[in-house]
């Protein structure tokens, strides 16, 4: 059997999981193959080094058992995991507040936009003259309409007027 096929069996040989004929085969190869012998030595040394059992010099078995037993009656967390929501709620709220502030306070006061708020979807002074009124309630004879909000570029406030319409009677 060639080297690569034996190499595939080395792990099982290391764990003593080969049949007796396979074992003889590998051992016969090992006599003539320093590379495979080194691999086996290396695995043994690496496993001994990497997986040495930790020492428990200060381990208190009774205390550990008490801690576990005390937790048995704790209610498990529900199926819905709130943690990610809580984790993101603060940054999300902050971002929304910042966006609202930029939208409401900064953009309207930008040079060139303060006098023409139609560009940002608000009702600026020019828009107030041209935008149609919105009908909010009506009956056969009368209706209340909301006039377009007028923006006062000095105070930065919007003014909304209610107009009663009596149908010309």
């Amino acid at each position, binding site marked *: 059997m060639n080297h690569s096929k034996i190499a595939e069996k080395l792990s099982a040989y290391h*764990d003593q999981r080969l049949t007796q004929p396979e074992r003889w085969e590998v051992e016969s190869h090992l006599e003539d193959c320093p590379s495979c012998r080194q691999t086996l030595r*290396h695995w043994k040394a*690496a496993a001994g*080094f990497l*997986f040495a059992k*930790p020492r*428990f010099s200060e381990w208190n078995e009774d205390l550990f*058992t008490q801690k*576990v037993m005390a937790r048995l009656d704790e209610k498990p967390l529900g199926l819905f995991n709130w943690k990610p929501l809580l984790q993101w709620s603060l940054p999300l709220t902050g971002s929304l507040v910042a966006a609202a502030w930029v939208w409401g306070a900064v953009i309207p006061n930008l040079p060139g936009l303060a006098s023409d708020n139609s560009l940002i979807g608000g009702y600026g002074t020019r828009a107030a003259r041209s935008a149609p009124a919105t009908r909010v309630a009506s009956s056969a004879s009368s209706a209340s309409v909301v006039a377009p909000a007028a923006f006062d570029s000095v105070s930065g406030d919007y003014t909304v007027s209610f107009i009663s319409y009596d149908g010309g009677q």
Partner: protein
Amino acid sequence: MDPVIEDRLLVEQILAGDQEVYAVLVQRYQRKVRGYCQSMLGDPTQADDAAQEAFVKAFRSLSKFRGDSAFSTWLYRITTNHCLDLLRKRKRRPTVSWDALMEQESGFLQRLASTEADAESSLENRDLAQKILSTLPDDYRTLLTLREAEGLSYEELGKVLHCSVDAVKSRLSRARKAMQERVRHFQALPGVQTLEERLKGL
């Protein structure tokens, strides 16, 4: 009495309402579970917490224990899943690749490697071992830890990891090659003791 049968009887007692009996199982397996958690996670404090959590999770799932494997094997499965969850969460933080570790800590590694083996260097050896293990893929680390540190058989590994014995065999072979690769880098450092030499100091 056979410990496997004894464990099953204890589980039946607990499921019948005698919760205090669970202390017997905790007492019996805590060193194994805690040791396994430490091998998987490295940090002793995190290992303590993980071991506690694994026992609590096992208690809550006790009704699902069907008894077709030993209680200890079933407990290893729960502990493995919990440790892998923790490792995944840890991986979301920036991780250190093997090359980066060699670059950042080559001085530290060389100092450790050239230290005479004594009580202090034994702790440092653990630290170094954890650093090397942390660069292995999680599934290789799990498999090697269960095999090399906990001594599970191929059949038990198959039950813990939900795979066939043939799959265990081939995965172990690949995991050992990966382990060899990591350690070979380390051994290539100038002034480094061979693992055989370091092993004598443990």
